[in-house]
Every structure is written in structure tokens, then in C-alpha cells.
């Protein structure tokens, strides 16, 4: 393979996005931004529901960014980017949940 002869920073891979998918992604991300904005500005929901809505929209936004702009779906096997992402999410979850768990007991104790 020719790619092995070159250095990593020269090996530009083509990004498999088309105009159509970028536009769809853009619309999705705009809509996902507007929904919580409208809800918050007009006080449409109570506090808990608003928080949940914002969180759900944020997660969807994350997925949209990954699929339409980061091209996580188009990666060739072996899918190292996807693996790194999942591992990163696991670590993130560990940090947040673990800290909450450990520190909860700590505040009880003090």
C-alpha cells in the first residue's frame, strides 16, 4: 500500500460527505438548538421537564454532529475512531458517576 510510504499528515483521506447530507445535518442541528431555546424563553415546561429536554436535545445534537459532520458512519473497518469514542464515553461516565458516588458519601460523612 502506498499509504504506508508517506507520513500520516500527508495521507488525506477523502471525507465522504455530500452537499445533501451536510444540509440535512445543518437543519437537524439548527432545529435541535431552536427547540430548547424556544422552550426556555417561553417557559413552556416546568423545571424538571426543561432540564430533561435540554439534556435529550444535547445528546441528539452530539449524535448529529458525529454522523453528519464527523462521518463516524463512513469509517472503514477496523473502526478505531468509533472504538476510541466509545471508550471515551465509558471513561467519561466513570468519571462523572464515580465522582458523584464517592463524593456523596463524603458529604454525608462530614
Amino acid at each position, binding site marked *: 500500500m502506498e499509504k*504506508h510510504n508517506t*507520513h500520516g499528515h500527508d495521507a488525506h483521506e477523502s471525507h465522504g460527505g455530500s452537499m445533501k447530507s451536510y444540509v440535512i445535518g445543518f437543519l437537524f442541528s439548527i432545529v435541535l438548538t431552536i427547540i430548547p431555546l424556544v422552550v426556555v424563553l417561553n417557559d413552556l415546561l416546568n423545571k424538571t421537564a426543561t432540564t430533561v429536554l435540554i439534556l435529550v436535545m444535547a445528546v441528539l445534537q452530539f449524535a448529529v454532529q458525529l454522523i453528519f459532520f464527523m462521518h463516524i458512519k463512513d469509517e472503514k473497518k477496523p473502526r478505531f475512531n468509533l472504538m476510541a469514542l466509545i*471508550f471515551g464515553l465509558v471513561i467519561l461516565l466513570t468519571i462523572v458517576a*464515580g465522582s458523584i458516588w464517592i463524593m456523596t*458519601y*463524603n458529604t454525608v460523612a*462530614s
Partner: protein
Amino acid sequence: MLDKIKEFASEFFVTGDPLILGAQVSIGLSLVAIIFVLTFFKKWRWLWTEWLTSVDHKKIGIMYIIASILMLFRGGVDALLMRVQLAAPELEFLHAEHYNQIFTTHGVIMILFMAMPLMFGLFNIVVPLQIGARDVAFPFLNSLSFWMFFFGAMLFNVSFIIGGSPDAGWLAYPPLSELSGSPGLGQDFYIWGIQISGIGSLATGINFVVTILKMRAPGMKLMQMPMFVWSVLSSCVTIMFAFPILTVTLFLLFLDRYLGAHFFTLDGGGNPMMYINLIWMWGHPEVYIVILPAFGIFSEIVSTFSKKKLFGYKSMVFALMSISFFSFFTWAHHFFTMGSGANVNAFFALTTMLIAIPTGVKVFNWLFTMYRGRIKFTTPMMWTVAFIPCFVVGGMTGVLLSVAPADFQFHNSYFLIAHFHQVLIGGVVFGYFAGLYYWWPKMFGFRLHEGLGKWAFWFWNIGFYVCFMPQYALGLMGMTRRVNTYDFDMGWQPLNVISTVGAFLMGAAFIFQVWQIAHSIKFYKKEKDGDAWDGRTLEWSIPSPAPLYNFARLPQVTSQDDWWEEKQRIAAGEPAKPLAPLEPIHMPKNSGIPFIMSVCWFTAGFGFVWDWLWMAIPGLIGVAVCMLARSFSYDTDYYIPVDEIERTEAALRGTK
């Protein structure tokens, strides 16, 4: 005017301690000597073009190793000073404040500025050669990583003569490390030194993950990689996810100190325990980051000097990768006594015990590799054989510490000190020494004197046990870490004296090593071919030291231990693999930007430490300018023509 300068100098320089004054004078004299030598022999241009701007992974590796040996010297002197202070009760060799500074710098330097760069040095030299690549994936970034590490380490080290050393322990727990507990500049030097070198470490981690995944020689499958490469991969994956936690945690501490935030303060809603929780999320993976490559080194050495294929290759890979994963789930065992409750402690005690299992698997793999092998006791092999019992004992005491209820007894006692020195010296230091001896001929083209190496080996080993075995007992007798002195009636003196003797034996061992290197350079004997130890992996298939482009032709890999199989085939009279025609080789150009950018970071960090914005802001602007300059430079690579490769190869291999 003169008074003002005097006043400034008395704040700027650390004054009042004869030991430090001596160090200041000797540092000044060595600087003058170095500048004189470089100028007298007109070597400035050589230094700049051949070393400071080099993006060659082999040269960067050598610079890492030189820096780490200097740091080993400083950290070692710190250790000896502490041992002298503890040799007798109520000594007044070091006063309490100075003692605090010394144990803090000893810890930081040994882990972050000795173990890490020694590890990165070996990564740099060995990994591209073992996977049949011509450089790392991002050579420019590699050079930047080195200089960030170097200037970060210098910023940390300079605190000992300018401004004052940090003295809040190697992990700088708040509230002691907050402005309320450490109003001096030492803690700021700590934060900026570690932050700057931490960026370099993170970049190296990413660089080697990409190198290993993307730049292997044609045909080399993941499961055919040398075990050292696997260990580097597992270590670098851990770096990628652990170092950001360190950066963020120290940044929050910086905000507390610099902008008066309240993340970890006692008042204003802060919680110091959160810092301890966060820092160990990095700190625990960090110890696996440094030990995993040592496991890889031992695997290579055991297999080479037993003349056998590594036993249990797949289980070894599985063990390495599972350790790097599970290392993220054990952090709370560093603060069982914090009061997080029984459930938390039980969970983290269990995960800690679990992680001992893959480590145990590896020990058996090494033993079975040696079983019925034709073992040759060269110095690298001796370090490996010494490592196994030492690490097993260290690991076992670790399992003792993992029992949460018992840990309330051991916590922060000398038992803990003995445990982690046993795994870090017996594992990491022995491992990197083994690797250094093993790959030395590949790095420099000559061997180290074996006899002196054996003296160093025995002094290190005997010194180690004499130094640290008594500390287990001292811990159980109630001696806590970080005490600078103790009373006559504690009964700790005899064991402490023995321990100090052991420390000096290790100091003597270091002198033997320096002597060994000097002796081997003086009686320089060039290696005839590149295969110093009848090796098994690709790095031994090329001349020593490797040419700039490493491989004239990229190797076509068909099996694990490919070079060994190739030699077997040739010995059996089978035809060697056909040689492909030479092609021009694509190489990266040297660049001065990494060095300049790291100087700018140093300037910015130094400015922030002293709260001199007139210095910090230009430093940061310099960093930005360097980034822009790099983004707009397109002339970054070139080709080595075929006739030049032919000439180099003929000269190196002594053929026409």
C-alpha cells in the same frame, strides 16, 4: 537603584541555605562551561541543525533518555538527602521546610520527569523500528512533545534556585496547595511545569497510537506485532484518556490560586476531597502507563535470551489491554481512609484485587517462556530475572494494601512507601534499565561493558532490598511517610540506618552505570552487524545505529518474530525474500518551530508564576505565532534519492 536590584534578587533567587547556594554556584559554573565548550568548538550550528530542530525519532529518543538520566540524578540526590536526614533521630541536616520541598520534588521528578521521558525515549527509538516504519505518524508533533516536556521539566526544576520549590507533596493536595496553605511561588512552578510537559505527554500518546495503528510494515497484522509494541499501545491508550484529567484538575487548582476560584478551597463551597478524587483518576492510570511498557520490554528480552517464542502471546495481549482498561476503575484505593463509606471501599478494593490477575498471568508467561529455553545471562536478561521476584513481592504487598479495612493501618505509612518503591523500582526502573541495555547497541552502534554493568546490577539489587525491606517493618512500627525526623524513643533508628545504607548502595550503582557508559565510549568498539543479541524482531534486521530512513526497503512481514523466522529460513538454505528495487524515500524536514514554541510556553509559564503579565502575554502570543507559522508552512517534506540510499547502505553494511 542598587538597593532595588538587591531586593529583587533576594526575592527572585532562593537564599539562605548552604546546600542550595552550592547548587546555584555549580549550576552557574556548568552553564558557563557548556557555553564555553560549544563556542570554543564552534558547535552551536551543529547543535541546532542536528539535534534541537531534528524530527528524527531516533534523535528525539536519545534526547529524552539524556534528559531522563539527568533527572534521575537529581531525583536520586533528593532521595539520598532524605535518607541522610532520617538516618538518626532528631537530626538537623535538613530543616522541616527544606525536607518538605525535597520529598515533593523527588516524587514529581522521578515519576513525571524521569520515568515518563525514559519511557518516551524508548518508545521513540524502538517502536518505529519494530513495526518497520520510517518515522512516527507525526514527526513534527513528536519534536514538539519532546520540547514541551523538556521546558516543562526545566520550569519545574528552576524553582529550586529561583522563587522556591513546591512543598505540598508530589500530588499537591489542597487545601495545603491552595494559596492559603502555600502562598509561595513553588506551587505555581509545579502547576505550570506539569501542565506544559503534560501537553507533550498527551501528544506523544496520540502520536504513538496512530503510529502503531496506521504505520506498520506491509503484512504485519496486529496480532503479529512485537509485544513491546502492544505494551506501548496499551500505555498510550491509557495516556490519551488519563492525561486530560490531570490537565483539567491542575487547571482548576490554577484558577483557585490565580483567580480566587473555589473549586478545592475549604470555604466558598469548595471541596478539597474532589481534587483528591480527580487527581487519582489520572494518578492511578499513570502508574500503569509507566509499568506497561516495562512489561513489554521484559517480554522482548525473555524471548530473545531464552531463544524461544514468547509463551502465551494472546494472553499477554489480553492482559496488557485489560490492565489498561481496568486501570481506570481502581482510583479510590488511594483514599480508602477518606470516609467514602463501605460500599465505595468494597467496590474499589475488589477492582484492585481483580487487576492483579492479568499481571499474574504475565508473570507465568515469562516463566514459561524461560522454561527449557537456552537462557543467556546478559545484563538485560539479569535485570529481567531480578524483576520477577521483586515485582511479585511488590504486587503482593499491593494486594495487602487493597484490603480496605487493613489499609486503615497501612495508609500513608512507610509500608506504603516500601510497596510503591518496590513496584516502581523493581518494575519500572529495572524494566527501563533492561530496555536501555538491550537497545543500547541499536541506538549507538556499540555495546555497553558487561562487567561494569553486572557490578551496577548487583549494587542496584542489593541496595534496593537493603533500602526498602526495612521500610515495610518501619511502616508497621508506625512510621508515617513525610516525617522529617523522629524521637529517640520510637525505636526506629536501626532500621532507618539500614535503609540509608541501602539507598547509598543504589547511589553507588548509579555511579557504576555512569562509569560503564564512559568506559564503553572510551573503548568504543563498533558493532559489526546490526543484530547485537541474535534478536527476533525487525529492529535487528537493519544496521546499528539505524540510518536516517531506518529501512531502505520496507520489510514484508509474514509472521510474528519475522526477523527470527527469516534467519531460520536462511539457515535452512531456503532463499531469502527477494529484494524489491529501491525507491526514493519520503522524509519530514527538520523544523525549529517546536523548540521556539516550547521556549514561548516556558516564557508564558514563568510569567504566570511570577504574575508578570508583561512576560506571560508575549509568551502566549509567541505560541500562537508559532502555530500560525506551522499552519502556513507547506515545505515540510523531501525525498531521499535512490543513489543516496545506495551509498548510505553500502557504507553501513560494508559492502559495495
